């Protein structure tokens, strides 16, 4: 379990992380989402003990990272954005070094073999790291995070720079790791977090701006005041009926999508649910409602909305 309370990090007058709090439960995969420079890496660096916080605290499985860093670090496997690899070592030498560095007590050969099999690097086990492809280097980086079987994994942009096939493989791997580990995964790639994570924390300009699962976030932000409907009947009659519904402030015809039926977007005042009133009026006028859907925001829309970038555009 990871607990972050009122965490802040200042660089001079600039606040890289501004009073953020969140909790990651055991066995949860948390997506840490935000644009570049939002404070994701700084937060992760504080969690792993690489940086100190200016205020607030972070606990890994109940151990305060600042008060007892060595014990806290034992609980963590960390993959920084740039995998910390020694190019002059073979994969075997490197993982063996990490094993010794972390003072592991698990049986060495079988533990390293298990990790290599998990991240699929057995075929490059005796090769020099400098001769590996970017994808394999990333896997070796992930393997070092898994050495010692830490209960918490912190992965900073683990798929950056990989080709699509490698991205899918790494995502699948992280998803499977989530069954036995608590994982924080940072990314600015939206499909990645939606594909892998149980929950998303959105951070922007150092501040936490949203916390929930992808569906919840979409629902919260879109509500029921924006609908897309398909109604059979005369276009003008439908339009006048929709505009006559109380609290409706915008109606737009999207065209005839089926023979004799038109699609409309209906936008009501924020917080007003017009679905019942719409159904009642259509049934009174005998106009069949063929289709109705709340205009849920895509993850991209949510992201842009939360980080204010959509408004800027």
């Amino acid at each position: 379990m990871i607990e972050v309370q009122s965490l802040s990090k200042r660089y001079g007058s600039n606040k890289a992380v501004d009073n953020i709090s969140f909790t990651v439960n055991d066995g949860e995969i948390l997506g840490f989402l935000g644009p570049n420079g939002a404070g994701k890496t700084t937060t992760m660096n504080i969690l792993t003990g690489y940086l100190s916080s200016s205020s607030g605290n972070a606990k890994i499985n109940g151990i305060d990272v600042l008060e007892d860093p060595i014990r806290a670090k034992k609980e963590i496997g960390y993959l920084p954005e740039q995998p910390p690899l020694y190019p002059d070592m073979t994969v075997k030498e490197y993982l063996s070094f990490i094993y010794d560095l972390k003072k592991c007590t698990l049986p060495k050969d079988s533990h390293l073999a298990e990790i290599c099999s998990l991240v699929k690097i057995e075929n490059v086990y005796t090769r020099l790291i400098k001769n590996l492809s970017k994808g394999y280097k990333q896997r070796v980086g992930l393997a070092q995070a898994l050495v010692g079987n830490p209960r918490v994994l912190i992965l900073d942009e683990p798929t950056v720079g990989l080709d699509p096939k490698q991205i899918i493989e790494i995502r699948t791997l992280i998803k499977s790791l989530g069954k036995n580990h608590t994982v924080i995964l940072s990314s600015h790639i939206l499909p990645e977090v939606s594909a892998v994570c149980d929950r998303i924390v959105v951070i922007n300009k150092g501040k936490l701006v949203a916390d929930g699962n992808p569906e919840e976030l979409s629902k919260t932000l879109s509500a029921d005041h924006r609908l897309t409907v398909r109604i059979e009947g005369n276009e003008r009659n439908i339009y006048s009926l929709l505009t006559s519904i109380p609290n409706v402030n915008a109606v737009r015809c999207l065209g005839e999508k089926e023979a004799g039926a038109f699609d409309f977007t209906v936008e009501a005042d924020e917080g007003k649910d017009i679905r019942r009133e719409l159904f009642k009026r259509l049934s009174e006028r005998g106009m069949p409602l063929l289709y109705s859907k709340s205009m849920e925001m895509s993850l991209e829309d949510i992201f842009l909305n939360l980080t204010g970038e959509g408004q800027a555009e």
Partner: protein
Amino acid sequence: MIAIIKRELKAYFSAPTGYIFLAGFFIFSGVFLYLCNLIYATADMSELYSLLFTLSLLLLPLLTMRLMSEEKKQKTDQLLLTSPVSLSGLVFGKFLAAFLMYMIGLSITLIYALVLAVYTSPGWAMVFGNYIGLAFVGGAIIAIGLFISSLTESQVVAAIGTYAAVILVLMIDLFAAYIPIDFLSTALMSLSFFNRYSEFTLGLFNLEHMIFFFSVYAVFIFLTVRILDKKRWN
């Protein structure tokens, strides 16, 4: 710490640095043996050790220049600093690795002494005195070089900085001689590496000098730890 020592020793031999250092040490010490002992058919190794003192100061920055700077450059410091290892253990491990490499180089002189001993006694007290004196001075240069390496990402800058520090250390005696104020001159002389090293070469093991060199190690290892720690708190 043992993991760090093993890693550093491996790194010396996976790059030319370790080979250049040892080759330099072995070749020059061999030449010095020939020039100082074999030509004159003498077993007195004091001249050889005196030349090795200068050689050590010239070669040691090669050992220390990459110790911390390379970690920063390759971003592997992130791995070390997020591992369950204390900063002092990490820095001391690096210090010991470089010191071990230096001792491997220096050990060749003991073989020379053994060869000379076949014919006549090389004066073992003097041999061990020189050997230990060089080990103490070398350790101090390594501690200084390690500290300078922690200040930069560039190996070249670290090496140049360490050479500058070595020159400064060598010139302390000169500065002290030109300072007319007695207590300042004495204070400076008390910092002289060469002065303290000279007593070891006579086969004298002065506890004060040993404590001085151990203090230099402690100060620069502590400063290196502080530099690493400062990064966390900035």
